[in-house]
């Protein structure tokens, strides 16, 4: 069985010489593939070629086995693209836009509209022209998530989204990927790239491959489980942790909160320190451990004693 998306020797150059050159990669069933790269690295050009808006000057793209040039119409039935704009029919409501775009892309699925709008906290009764930038982005993401297509293409999917909406989006992406949907998304944010199972790094229109974990070295990973959804956020300093938690809390009561530092190297906890940290309520115990470890690494401590726990507590305890 061939991969749902196979790009081979893909080239598209603008008259000024920029663009993409000789890109070959594939994305397997259920794979979440991140395309990372700075501004001007060629991500948007690549997405426009994948989405059949640009005809490749060299090379081929096959989506679900269909060549995007020779079998364009069939290939277009196999994917749902989200471009870097969130264009909608401004006069129509959010619901009408969902209906229209799902019809346009030949998708029948409508059963999860309420579920998604609740999670994205989006009022679908308003005209899309009255939506803010972030709300329009949520609407276009909802359309993609509802489309039921086997391949989803996202160029900068979280543009204009707040932190909790980003978490909601990646939660749904994980859910779809578990059901076998192939997701390819472009981003220039390190913390987002690491949500992908594999990350391709674009630079000057050419590809390199990276371990997403390395992109998060030095960051703090916060994972919150609400009902069946797991949200992950990455922050640079422990001071940002309460904000992230506060943003996710309106979505429901967390079953679990896990916080860990992405730094390398082990820390040693003394028994007394563990006992002291363990006095925290069960729900936040892991968070306390994460904060203390982060504090210890910042200070260069390799051994965590009750004094270190106390120092961290005094520093981060709400006043």
């Amino acid at each position, binding site marked *: 069985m061939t991969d749902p998306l196979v790009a081979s020797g893909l080239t598209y150059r603008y008259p000024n010489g920029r663009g993409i050159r000789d890109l070959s990669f594939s994305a397997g069933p259920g794979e979440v593939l991140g395309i990372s790269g700075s501004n001007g690295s060629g991500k948007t050009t690549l997405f426009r070629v994948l*989405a059949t808006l640009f005809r490749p000057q060299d090379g081929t793209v096959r989506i679900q086995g269909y060549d995007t040039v020779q079998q364009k119409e069939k290939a277009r039935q196999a994917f749902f*693209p989200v*471009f870097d*704009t969130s264009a909608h029919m401004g*006069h*129509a409501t959010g619901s009408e836009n969902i209906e*229209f775009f799902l019809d*346009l892309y*030949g998708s029948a699925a409508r059963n999860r509209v309420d579920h998604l709008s609740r999670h994205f906290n989006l009022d679908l009764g308003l005209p899309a022209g009255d939506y803010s930038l972030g709300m329009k982005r949520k609407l276009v993401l909802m359309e993609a998530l509802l489309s039921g297509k086997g391949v989803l293409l996202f160029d900068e999917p979280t543009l204009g989204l707040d932190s909790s909406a980003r978490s909601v989006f990646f939660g749904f992406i994980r859910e779809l990927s578990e059901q076998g949907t192939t997701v390819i998304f472009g981003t220039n944010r390190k913390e987002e790239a690491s949500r992908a199972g594999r990350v391709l790094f674009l630079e000057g229109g050419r590809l390199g491959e990276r371990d997403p974990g390395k992109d998060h070295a030095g960051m703090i990973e916060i994972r919150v489980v609400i009902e069946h959804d797991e949200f992950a956020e990455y922050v640079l300093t422990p001071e940002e942790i309460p904000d992230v938690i506060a943003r996710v809390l309106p979505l429901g009561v967390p079953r679990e909160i896990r916080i860990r530092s992405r730094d390398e190297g082990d820390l040693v906890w003394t028994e007394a320190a563990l006992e002291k940290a363990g006095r925290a309520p069960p729900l936040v115990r892991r968070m306390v451990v994460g904060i203390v470890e982060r504090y210890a690494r910042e200070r260069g401590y390799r051994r965590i004693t009750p004094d270190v726990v106390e120092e961290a507590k005094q520093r981060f305890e709400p006043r």
Partner: protein
Amino acid sequence: MIGRMMIGEFWQGKKSLLLKVAVPFAIVVGAGSAGYAGIGLAMLLLFTGLLGAGMSVVRLKTAGLYDRLIASPAGKTGLFLEVSGAQSLVLVIQYLPALAGAAWFAGLPILYPAVLSMLVVAVLGVAIGAASGGLGEMHQNAVLAVLPLLLATFAPHPAARVLPFHGIIAPELTAPAIVLPVITLVVLYLLFAAWASRL
């Protein structure tokens, strides 16, 4: 569905619509009171009709809607015909008072070439908008398209009957004047459909 949505999208609010209805009406009535109702209407359609249709499509491009329509699996021939159909309908509605004014001054036969002219400028304008990269390029292309149309409109040669604009200036209900512009319109639609199907 696409056509209905596009009509809503091309409709740009009450204030804008009022202006688009009132200005052509005032121009046609002004020109009509001096005995030039047909010329006034033809010039309006050639310039504002063509540019308006082109600008509507460029606006879709700027907003990103055009890309979403093109990347969809929907047949592009049908899609473009629906878009130009919606544009034609919006144009006819906006020009209704102006058409009534022209009919008052020049007689009812002016309505036939006038409505056909609207269909021609709508399909040409949408095609020009779709083929242009941006607003500047669209203006340039529209001006290039208007020049031969102007010549054909005012040429006293019988061949000018292939375009409906000539009939607005000199309305006549002869067989060539009725049939030829329809053939032109059908050919234009077919050419446009063939081009659109490659997108």
